[in-house]
Each structure stands twice: as C-alpha cells, then as structure tokens.
C-alpha cells in the first residue's frame, strides 16, 4: 500500500470509529488500536501513540458543547484528575517496559469488559441520598439542569471512586485509550453521580488524562506523524459529527452493533496476544 492509499483508508476507518465512539459514548480509541494492529498490521506501539492523540482531540472538541449545557462538574473532574494523571504516568511508564504481547492481552481483556459494560442496563442513581461528610468537605456535591429545573445530587463513596480513577488512568496511559467506560463506572456506580453528569465530566477528564501520558509517548518516539495525522483528523471529524446528530440518532441498536464489534476485536486481540502474533 502506498502512503496516499494508507492515509485515505485509515482516515475513513478513524472517521467511522470517531462517529460510533461518540454516538455510543464509549470513545473511538478503544476500537482504533485493535483495528490498526489487526487489519493494518501497525505495530501496537505506533497504534497506541496515534490513538492517544485522537483521544485528546475528541475530548477537547466536544467539551465546549457540554459546558454550555451545564452538566459537567469541574470540581469532581479536577479532584479525580489527581488520581487519573498519576495513574496515567504509571501506565505510560509501564507501557515502555512490558512486552507487546502482554499489552495485547490486557487490551483484549479491557475490550471484553467494555463490551460487557455497554450491554449492562444502567441503574438509575437514587434521587435523594444523604450528603457524605467527605464529599461535602471536598465540595463535590452539585446540581444539573433537569426537566423540573436544577436537580441537586450528593456524591457518595469518594475513596472508592478515587481508587477506580487511578486504575482508569493507568489503563489510559498503558493502552492509549480514554478509558471512558471505567471512568463512567467509577462515577455512576461507585460515587452515585447522575449518569449525564458522569458522562460529560468523564469526557472532560479523558483529555487531561491523555495529555498526562502523551508527552511520554511522543518523547519515546511512539507518535508517528504519518500515522497520527489521518487518525487524529478522522476521529475528530467523526466525533464532531456524532455529537451533532446524537439527539436524533437511535442509539440503542448502535450500541448493540458497537458492543459486538468490541467483543470480536477483544477476542482477536487475546488470540494474537497469546499466540505471540503481536
């Protein structure tokens, strides 16, 4: 394949990944790394570098829209960001030291987990929980626009959420993904933060977490300009389009398709990792 053909095909694939990623809320990076390594035979380290850059583009591109709606809680985001950035540094440090077959196996496991989470029914956070002393001290409780005006919420189980965020950061730094699925899980399930606040705050955090490990990847020579260019432009265009049509789209069937894709890619990554093909 010539560079021109490669660039065009990778840009189209990245566009679709960005579009599906933003429509389903799982992000594009989680499918890009396996697609690049399995179908384009890109070394997993180059794929991780390019994906990480596209994660920042997606997060920052969509942030302006979310901020206007007043859903994301910047205090929750910034407090948890302490955990994710530390985790991301650790992940990036480990990524340059462990063999690529191990990376593929961890990636496969994360994909299977993401497919499981995306199929699981969402539990509606209980409406009126008593304020948690630690969350109150940290001023994490907030409110967001609802049909009946602004709805307040009280954040729960701060230490559990903070620990999960450290893990999310480590995965992000290790695999070059946003690890939005783990971040939303930590906020939605552990900390009982309303789903819309969790997803939009997670979107804000993903970019900062990725920036924490991106410098390490770039300085180690994992970020190739020729590969990152079509990936970044494609994912950005796809996710911007996705965030515009989000309101009208039938996301339920899309989520099903996307989680099947993730499942297949996850199994493929595990196979390649165990048989030393990556």
């Amino acid at each position: 394949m010539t560079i021109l053909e490669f660039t065009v095909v990778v840009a189209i694939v990245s566009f679709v990944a960005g579009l599906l990623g933003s429509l389903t809320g799982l992000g594009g990076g989680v499918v890009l790394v396996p697609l690049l390594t399995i179908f384009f035979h890109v070394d997993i380290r180059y794929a991780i570098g390019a994906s990480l850059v596209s994660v920042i583009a997606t997060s920052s591109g969509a942030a302006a829209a979310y901020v206007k709606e007043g859903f994301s809680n910047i205090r929750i985001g910034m407090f948890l960001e302490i955990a994710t950035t530390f985790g991301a540094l650790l992940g990036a440090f480990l990524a340059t030291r462990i063999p690529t077959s191990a990376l593929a196996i961890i990636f496969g496991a994360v994909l299977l987990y993401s497919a499981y989470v995306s199929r699981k029914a969402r539990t509606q956070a209980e409406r009126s929980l008593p304020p948690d002393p630690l969350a109150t001290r940290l001023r994490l409780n907030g409110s967001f626009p609802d049909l009946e005006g602004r709805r307040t919420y009280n954040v729960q189980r701060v230490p559990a959420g903070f620990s999960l965020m450290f893990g999310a950061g480590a995965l992000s730094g290790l695999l070059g993904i946003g690890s939005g699925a783990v971040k939303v899980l930590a906020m939605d399930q552990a900390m009982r933060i309303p789903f819309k606040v969790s997803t939009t705050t997670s979107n804000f955090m993903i970019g900062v977490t990725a920036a924490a490990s991106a410098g390490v990847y770039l300085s180690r020579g994992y970020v190739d300009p020729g590969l990152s260019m079509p990936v970044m432009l494609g994912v950005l265009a796809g996710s911007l389009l996705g965030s515009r049509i989000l309101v009208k789209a039938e996301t339920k069937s899309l989520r099903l398709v996307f989680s099947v894709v993730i499942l297949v890619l996850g199994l493929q990554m595990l196979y390649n990792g165990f048989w030393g093909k990556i």
Partner: protein
Amino acid sequence: MPAAQAPVRQSQPFKPQPWRDRRIEVILGNLLRTGVLVSAAVVLVGACIYLYRHAHDPADYRVFRGEPSEYRTISGVIQSVISGRGQGIIQLGLLLLIATPIARVAFSVVGFAIERDRLYVAFTMLVLAILLYSFLGSGIGV
C-alpha cells in the same frame, strides 16, 4: 441567570455550585475548541506537504523503529518546521493539541483563585504539576 440561582445558594450555603461564575466555564470550553481547531488546521497543512512529497512511497508500520529525534523533542520539531518538512508541521500540530488540555488546567487555577477556593487552587495546581512534569520531564523539551 444569577437571579434564578440565588435562592439555591442561600438554602445550601455549604454546597457551592460548580463554577459560580459561568462565564469562566464558557471561556474554558471555547479555549479547548479553539485549541483543537487550530491544531487540526496545522496538522492539515502538514498533511498536504507530506502527502504531496511522499504519496507514492510504501506505507509500512509493521516494525517499530521509534521516531527520529527531530519528531521526539520540541526543539527538533521546530527545526523540522523551519526546514519546511510536512511531518514536522504535523508533529507541531500534535504538540499544540497535547498543550490544549494543559492550558485548560492552568486557566482553571485562575478560575478557582477568582472564586477564592483555596482547596481547589491547590488540587488544580497539583494536577498541573503532574502534567508539566510529564510533558517537560519526559525529555520532550530537550
């Protein structure tokens, strides 16, 4: 807007709303979007030069070689931009992209300082320190 939110604040004096001054939040959101669009434009310019010169070369990413130092450090990237290399310009766009969320965190420190929220000024400065340590301490600045 401020008039509508006032009663909520009075009834819950110990639970401040996230970013009482919504303008700061909107400014930060626009900063992020501008940063992304500028870096995408720079990447696109680099892409045109790169594709014009290398369109028919074979694409091969099977073997990891690691990038040469001109694409691994800020000074190297600036050097290759000056000499008009497409890949160097792409890499400059990617550096701008990585800097965008770091700039947002830096501006958030100012936002919390305006709100006189010392706890969150401290938290945000800690995050900023980790980011700067990673960005500059990784050898990228050499």
